[in-house]
């Protein structure tokens, strides 16, 4: 549970994330790390999907870190949009470059 000091103006309100939220996030991250290791070492045979799977799990971890540890959840929505725009640009670069490479 997070708390806010309601008597402050909205832009100055602070939030204190609970231990429960912090530990839940930590456990989620550890679990995702374990899944990554299990898949790569004990080898679900994913062939060409192995990179995709690793990236997918890493992306989920990034979202969790940004959302909870870096307080995106409690910040103004504009910051979420800014992060999304950067993510969209990065994905676009990767996709466009890959399209070019795979169709050579």
């Amino acid at each position: 549970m997070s708390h806010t000091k309601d008597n402050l103006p909205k832009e100055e309100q602070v939030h204190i994330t609970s231990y429960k939220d912090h530990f839940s996030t930590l456990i989620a991250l550890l679990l995702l790390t374990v899944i990554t290791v299990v898949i790569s070492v004990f080898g679900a045979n994913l062939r060409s999907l192995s990179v995709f799977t690793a990236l997918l799990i890493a992306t989920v971890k990034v979202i969790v870190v940004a959302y909870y540890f870096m307080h995106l959840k409690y910040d103004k929505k504009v910051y979420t949009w800014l992060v999304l725009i950067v993510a969209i640009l990065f994905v676009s670069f990767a996709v466009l470059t890959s399209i070019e490479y795979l169709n050579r």
Partner: protein
Amino acid sequence: MTSTALNLNYLQAKKGIFSWIFSVDHKRIGLLYLYSLITFFLVGATLGVLMRLELLNPGKDLFEAQTYNQIFTMHGVIMIFLFIIPSIPAVFGNFFLPIMLGTDDVSFPRLNLLSWWIYIIGAIMALSTLLFGDGPADTGWTFYVPYSVKTGTNVTMSVLAAFVLGFSSILTGLNFIVTIHRLKTPGMTFLKMPLFAWALYATSWIQLLATPVIGITLLMIVAERVFGVGLFDPSIGGDPILYQHLFWIYSHPAVYIMALPAFGIISELLPTFSNRTIFGYKAIAFSSLAIAFVGYFVWGHHMFTSGMSGLARIIYSIMTFLVAIPTAIKVFNWVATLYKGSIDVQPPLLYGLGFIFQFMIGGLSGLVLGALATDIHLHDTYFVVGHFHYVMFGGTGFAFFGALHYWYPKIWGRMYNKLVANIAFFILFIGFNLLYFPMMIAGLMGMPRRYYDYLPEFHLPNMISTYGSWVLAIGLLLMLGNLIAGFRRKHEKIARNPWGTGITLEWQTLSPPPVANFDRMPVLPKDGPYDYDHKPEIKE
């Protein structure tokens, strides 16, 4: 503090070199950039004139081929990284953005000073390549692999210089974004912001998001040269085309870092000298953002002949044509602003009109290069050199000069000789077109770029082009000489609004502005920044 002390202008406030190079006043930092930029511009222009001299006649005249390669690389690196990328944002953005927003400084003044120092360190690194080893890089300003990995010239130092300069660009962009979000004067919303501020806002996002890509790409070249990692070497699994992708992912948006602020300047000049509101304020403002956004996805049009896939070429070609739409929106709105305006032909407007004319030639020739079929023929010919200079010099360069003439009385509290300024403009305009238009003809005839020699059939356009470079140089010297001579005209007292029709907030303060920018609270026009129907009365 007394009111007299408060009204002390920023030029008088403190004396001595240290009061300048360690100043955190955005106005002084803007001028530090201006003096540095003009110095590097003159060095780059001199190299350009020397190149044209070599190309006056076929055969070897002045330089060996290797020297010529190093000179055109140095010309490109100086003009791109030290002049045109920082130019308008670093000088006029720094000086006028806070004033136009009605605030007293940028959000992070110390970071602003750090940006200038980083810029100077990067410049020293770039120029130091002249002094040791086999001399400056000979790769062209694009540092294409595999040659940039193999050559013995000082590529490593050159790319490290560009890497350092990138930080200066990022920090300036960051500063402007935060300033625009946080420090607008009360009552000024985004849609009441001057169009120059909009242009800087869009530019800043590109600086912030695209520059890191070139940073890491340039470090990859260093890794290749120093450690032989093989990122771009096909024999050990690398891909040379990957370099071109990474380079142009930054460097195409960088074209908009150079062009968007120039669009902002033109959007300020035209209402002032047409004495009427800008036509299509929102269209111009949002088209800046559209250009910044779409501009991210067109980098592949620089690589049509690189061996990239056919499908990708089609995608990039379509995207290239898309980016022409918001650009054309701006041009139509500028022309519509002039229509039925009460036009006062002053030197800054001449530069604005010169910009529109030359930028149109540059932009339309860009579409020729964006079309796959024609690009195959014209790639790596002088057509590209002509096109690029029409956009960058004929466009951004002329906008820079226009801004210099427009804000000169505000910055220094002096006025130059307008007749001489007009004459200098026409010499520059004629020289520019004599210099660069024949390049496009030579390119259409098939003359390849980047060689110190050419076949005899290309002699005529090259000869005209070299003559043009002399006319252009005379125009430049006359223009700069006139501006410098203007400093000595101390007897004139410059009014707050010397053009009489300026409407944005900088025309409400003293000329030159006081340290805190305003001696009294600025008043916003009622319906947006170009509301000539409710123009605030400005008392001296």
